């Protein structure tokens, strides 16, 4: 809240209200599906920006302001510090996503898309899982790099994470063994964020099935654990002097 993170909600609400009012004519009565598309994509975009720009500052600000010394003077380990920061930002993002989800649902009810108002929540949950992964990546980079570079690297991982499965398929058609090995590596090492893309389907009233949600949750938990472990390892060895 100190970073006025939730101010983005005002912008989001304005966007959704504008969509609900203006899209009727532009889409020839198909405004409900467009509200879902715009709402869910904006939810992800806003969430990613918060995860990146707040996430990369969480650790570096404490170091720059030297508040990290007073913190470690108390019985708080470096691992707990990283995990605490991560959980704090994740909870903020959860609140953010929940409020945005309610906003989209209300806009859908306003335009008569009652079915979609309920069915989007599976996709909303997947967006939150994706944000949880992006947040962990941001904290990892911020544990050893400058905020600007961390933001750039996190955003790159976000982009590649979405493209990795498509690039892997593309590499398979290229006929180059090296390309196949490289993109296979990218596919497995970087998070496969395409697993959490269900926005287009949600606009067509489709709901992710239980294996997709459960599998996505477990994948996110495992990946976040790996990333935070690396972040703690690096942060534990860091010299603040």
């Amino acid at each position, binding site marked *: 809240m100190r970073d006025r993170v939730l101010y983005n909600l005002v912008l989001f609400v304005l966007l959704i209200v504008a969509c609900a009012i203006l899209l009727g004519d532009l889409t020839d*009565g198909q405004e409900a599906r467009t509200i879902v598309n715009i709402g869910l994509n904006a939810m992800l975009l806003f969430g990613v920006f918060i995860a990146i720009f707040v996430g990369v500052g969480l650790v570096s600000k404490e170091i720059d302001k030297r508040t990290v010394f007073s913190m470690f003077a108390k019985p708080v380990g470096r691992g707990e510090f990283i995990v605490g920061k991560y959980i704090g930002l994740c909870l903020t993002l959860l609140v953010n996503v929940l409020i945005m989800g309610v906003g989209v649902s209300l806009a859908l009810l306003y335009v008569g898309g009652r079915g979609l108002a309920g069915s989007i929540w599976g996709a909303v949950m997947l967006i939150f899982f994706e944000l949880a992964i992006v947040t962990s990546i941001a904290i990892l980079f911020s544990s050893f790099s400058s905020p600007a570079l961390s933001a750039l690297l996190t955003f790159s991982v976000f982009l590649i994470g979405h493209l990795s499965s498509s690039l892997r398929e593309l590499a398979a058609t290229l006929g180059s063994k090296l390309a196949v090995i490289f993109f296979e590596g990218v596919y497995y090492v970087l998070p496969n964020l395409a697993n959490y893309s269900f926005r287009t389907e949600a606009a067509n009233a489709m709901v992710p099935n239980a294996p997709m949600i459960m599998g996505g949750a477990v994948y996110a938990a495992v990946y976040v654990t790996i990333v935070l472990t690396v972040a703690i390892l690096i942060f534990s060895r860091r010299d603040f002097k």
Partner: protein
Amino acid sequence: MKKDAIIASIVIVCGFAGVFLLSSYLETNRISVPESYADEDLSLQGKKLKGYALGAEGLVADWYWMRALQYIGDKVVKKGIESLNIDDMTELNPRLLYQMLDNATELDPKLMAAFSYGATVLPAIDPQQAIKLTEKGIAANPNEWRLLQYLGYIHWKLKDYEKAGEVYDRGAAIPGAPPFFRMMAARIRTESGSRDLAREIYKQSIAEAPDEQTKTVSEIRLMELDSMDERDAIDAALDEFRVQTGTCVKKWSDILPLLAKIDLPHNRKLRVNNADEIVDPAGFPYLIDAATCKAMLSPDTKIPLR
């Protein structure tokens, strides 16, 4: 400090005034480019973004869909056409419409409104493109019987009644398809181009229309059929008057009593406005063609003139 604020305010106000004037100047002095050039401003390969749009394919599809909707309207406005011929839109040269709808449906194959719009509008531009788009929709959504309804309609419009009948048969085989598919398959084969069959097709189209565009076009088509019935009846009355008097009717009020007796199909009656003129289903007065002594549509009506 106060002086600085005043100077700054003057600069800002004058600046905006200048921006306003320059904007108008630039707008009016823009070089007019050929229409085909203006059409080029769209990226037509959007469908290649599939798999690379960070999961926002649906949003990009919606953009193409909205562009497709505005495209025809913009063309009509730019060409200054007052009455659009929904049977033949080639004069608008809407050559990008298919690509827009193709992109939209490639990025989101469940975008039924785009298929519906294509099936309704593309036959007036290029029927083969309409068939191609609808077949693509059927391949991606094999259980969507509405798409077969559209395809049957396109073949029926092309007077390929055998093919239309086959398509309705295919539709009837889809689980959950309404019973009218079976009935339509039979009627198309036996009645082929009858007005009653056409009326039935348009009524179903209105009942099942997922968007306003499809509904509006079907409503105009229904009005056209009603108008055809009306003109047949009026022409018969005009003939009768000419046989009796040896001259053609000059104004509608001369034969109103004769017209009032006419019973149109489906228990309808001819409609008369406050000026004692016979009006078409869209509310525009019919005209009398002095040369042929037959009723004709007003150029202002939204019913297709043919």
